[in-house]
């Protein structure tokens, strides 16, 4: 974008940066020999997978490393003519927020929960410029207006928990840019946000950067975001920059094999346009059993949560998490449930495995699930299993992985002794792990391996259906691709059905036969994958698809279609009767809800 910038002096110049963390075996470098220049007004994206050292780079520049566990061991970070690597803590304090500001990944936890937005904003100002409190307040209000937040005056008095994730990230941006810093570092600023919110935040950052001329370092694992934002890209792997260059060169003519691998692994939404069926079996005709009985049949599923209060502790309000949804899954089929956070997709999954009380009927493998009868829940759980999002949190750290995988067999009294051992071992080989891994504990495995262990555990009871709730979201793209492969391989071998719950449209495109889009507890569109993703009919589906950043710098969007405001709340007074959407068949079983009936979509293109 800015060729004249190269002639100018860089605002930030990093040379030979080396950051080490202390380990029992001595210091281990996490950033090794990093060089880059950042020019005024430029956007440099540092891309890489987890553990590549990209966040450590940001923390090194800010000198916010968790010392003494991690520290800068060499190199220089020149801001103008000062070397930040050698600055004392007192001087460094004046740089932070004033000259270099930072936005973090988790907007939900990055703001202090017991301080108002206003006091956190004014603090960012008064930390560097002495000003009267009225003046600081006015400046804080200006900063909030600049990030285009709704009702800025009211936000000043609110606490972080009263704001949505997108609004909190806007507050973080307002705080970071309040003093007009020379450099802004954004560490995965949109990773924790829904796609439509992500699009808004990316657009905001880009607009503000153009206005202020701030140089931006954007750290991300998402090549879609890189393509959308970067002028230049630095690809990091194992603490080193493997390739650095203008964004088009990196995407169109990557020189380094790692860059090529990384780009190849990125699922691109729209890659399977016009083809039926998931990636692996794309084009192949599915074994045509005429009208097979559905393995999962859900009719009018409703899940509501009570909020109690008042003198007698009665139910005062209800969260209408899922409202009267119906769907079926056939044997050997993958139904993807997509939607943004809070739309009820995970709740649906939980109700299916009997983890939540529900209304409506659920049939699994022809048997009706009765939420109250323990015996029937137990029998049902043999047919339906679940894989969760976080492979780190869903494995008991004190058990060996062999015991974890074998536990369902023990609980259901299906195997013991040598037989148990053999069955667990065969599950391990089936998911691509080795037999001798069985004796180890979860912390000895990587994220991808742990998700394989979770898959093995779900397979142990030979279920007919597996619910995968955001099961690949926490994984790096290359690992993600392999886990998706494994899931599809298991499906074609064993004929398992999946309910694949995900917010990631590109992943959904790769794995699903059919797709259902959820919004505010209801299904707004459902059909085969090509029906829903290639010819979306409902405006909400269209907006979701448009919001996904494409990993191609030539398809960059100048402005994003925007959802104005926030999704309405699913919390209602007792006695509220929700209107159930009617789905209309627009041809070949492609079901679409009436646009006019969809509550407060608040669209503005």
């Amino acid at each position: 974008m800015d060729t004249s910038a190269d002639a100018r002096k860089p605002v930030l110049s990093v040379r030979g940066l080396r950051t080490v963390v202390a380990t029992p075996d001595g210091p281990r470098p996490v950033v090794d020999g990093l060089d880059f220049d950042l020019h005024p007004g430029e956007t440099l994206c540092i891309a890489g997978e987890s553990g590549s050292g990209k966040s450590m780079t940001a923390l090194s520049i800010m000198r916010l490393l968790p010392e003494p566990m991690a520290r800068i061991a060499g190199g220089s970070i020149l801001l103008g003519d000062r070397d930040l690597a050698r600055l004392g803590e007192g001087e460094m304090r004046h740089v932070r927020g004033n000259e270099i500001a930072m936005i973090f990944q988790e907007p939900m936890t990055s703001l202090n929960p017991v301080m108002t937005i206003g006091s956190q904003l004014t603090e960012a100002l008064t930390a560097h410029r002495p000003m009267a409190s009225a003046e600081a307040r006015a400046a804080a209000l200006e900063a909030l207006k600049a990030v285009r937040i709704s009702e800025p005056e009211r936000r000043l008095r609110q606490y972080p928990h009263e704001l949505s994730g997108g609004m909190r990230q806007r507050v973080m941006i307002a705080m970071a840019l309040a003093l007009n810093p020379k450099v802004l570092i954004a560490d995965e600023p949109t990773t924790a946000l829904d796609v439509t919110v992500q699009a808004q935040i990316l657009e905001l950052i880009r607009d503000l950067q153009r206005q202020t001329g701030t140089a931006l370092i954007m750290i991300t694992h998402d090549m879609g975001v890189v393509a959308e934002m970067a002028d230049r890209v630095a690809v990091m792997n194992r603490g080193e920059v493997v390739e650095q260059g203008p964004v088009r060169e990196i995407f169109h003519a990557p020189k380094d094999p790692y860059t090529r691998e990384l780009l190849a692994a990125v699922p691109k939404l729209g890659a399977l346009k016009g083809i039926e069926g998931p990636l692996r079996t794309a084009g192949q005709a599915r074994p045509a059993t005429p009208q097979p009985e559905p393995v999962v049949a859900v009719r009018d599923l409703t899940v509501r949560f009570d909020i109690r209060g008042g003198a007698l502790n009665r139910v005062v309000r209800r969260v209408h998490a899922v409202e009267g949804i119906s769907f079926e899954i056939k044997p050997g089929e993958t139904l993807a449930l997509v939607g943004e956070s809070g739309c009820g997709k995970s709740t649906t999954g939980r109700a299916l495995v009997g983890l939540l009380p529900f209304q409506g009927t659920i049939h699994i493998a022809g048997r009706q699930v009765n939420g109250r009868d323990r015996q029937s829940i137990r029998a049902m759980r043999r047919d339906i299993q679940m894989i969760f999002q976080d492979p780190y949190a869903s494995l008991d750290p004190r058990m060996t992985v062999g015991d974890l995988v074998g536990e369902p067999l023990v609980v259901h009294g299906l195997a013991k002794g040598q037989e148990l051992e053999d069955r667990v071992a065969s599950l391990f080989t089936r998911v691509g792990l080795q037999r001798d891994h069985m004796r180890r504990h979860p912390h000895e495995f990587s994220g991808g391996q742990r998700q394989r262990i979770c898959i093995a555990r779900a397979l142990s009871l030979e279920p007919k259906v597996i619910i995968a709730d955001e099961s690949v979201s926490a994984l790096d793209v290359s690992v993600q691709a392999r886990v998706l492969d494994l899931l599809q391989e298991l499906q074609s071998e064993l004929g398992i059905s999946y309910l694949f719950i995900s917010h990631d449209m590109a992943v959904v495109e790769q794995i699903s036969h059919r797709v259902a889009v959820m919004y505010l507890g209801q299904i707004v569109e459902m059909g085969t994958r090509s029906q829903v993703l290639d010819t979306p009919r409902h405006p909400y589906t269209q907006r979701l698809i448009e919001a996904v950043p494409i990993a191609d710098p030539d398809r960059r969007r100048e402005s994003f279609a925007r959802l104005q405001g926030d999704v309405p709340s699913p919390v209602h007074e007792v006695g509220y009767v929700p209107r159930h959407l009617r789905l209309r068949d627009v041809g070949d079983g492609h079901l679409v809800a009436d646009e006019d009936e969809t509550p407060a979509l608040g669209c503005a293109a």
Partner: protein
Amino acid sequence: MAAYIFRRLVQAFLILLGVSLVTFVLLYLVPADPARQIAGRSATAETVANIREQLGLNLPFHEQYLRYLGRLVQGDLGRSYLQKTEVSALIASRLPASLLLMAGAIVCELLLGLTMGMVAAVRRNTRIDQGLMVLSFVGVSAPQFVVGILLLYVFAVQFGWFPIGGYGTFAHLVLPSVTLGFLGAGWYSRMMRSSMLDVLRQDYIRTARAKGVTRLRVILRHALPNAILPIIAMIGIDIGLFMSGIVVVESVFGWPGIGQLTWQAIQRVDIPIIMGVTLVSACAIVLGNLLADLIAPLIDPRIKLR
């Protein structure tokens, strides 16, 4: 809010009813015969029987309890067997001294405990941290009569800074308060240290540092209010701890409070006093907890009382 307090007060009433029943049963089962205690060793069997008649001690258990409850509702805690005065009057005359002592102890344990915990967390894994944690360990494990006597010996006898015992001025209050609060300070410093370490790892602390806020402000304005939250709930529970503590501390320092009254009553099996003190303590604990729960939302806006 009003609905919440109402519900809590109903709960409190049920708790107190339960406490009265349990203490009544326990004291009913005590082998000592209150009538014999009152009459004295030399009294005839007839006199003892008379006293038993008078006090209703020969009635069946449930009638005794109901009669007791009936009087209780009217605010009548009964008469002391031995001192021949109203229990409520006795307690009322002793309560202010004990409340003063407890207030002093709370101030001591919060000041000592929170400061120690905070400093230890900020100076984690240094000599200072280790030293403070040893001190807190002493606080947790040293018996209160030992701490009390030690403090008396050093600060009253050797240095003569404080009076040896008694009641009346601020100087009298210092040593008993420190003694009573020392145990709690030990607990609090450990809790505060781990709570503070937890908070210092949070993302919002990093955000505050990224803003360029001074280190002192990060600790006092951002970390402290968050770290103190789990401790506030503890203060309510602490009042129960104090109730057992004052029995020892008041004896050591000759402090004219409920503790001494209780100690004397226990020795003489003066059941109405024991019952009365138990109920008053239960009240204090219930109210203390309610107060702690009411303070929490003032610090953390996410806590909603309903």
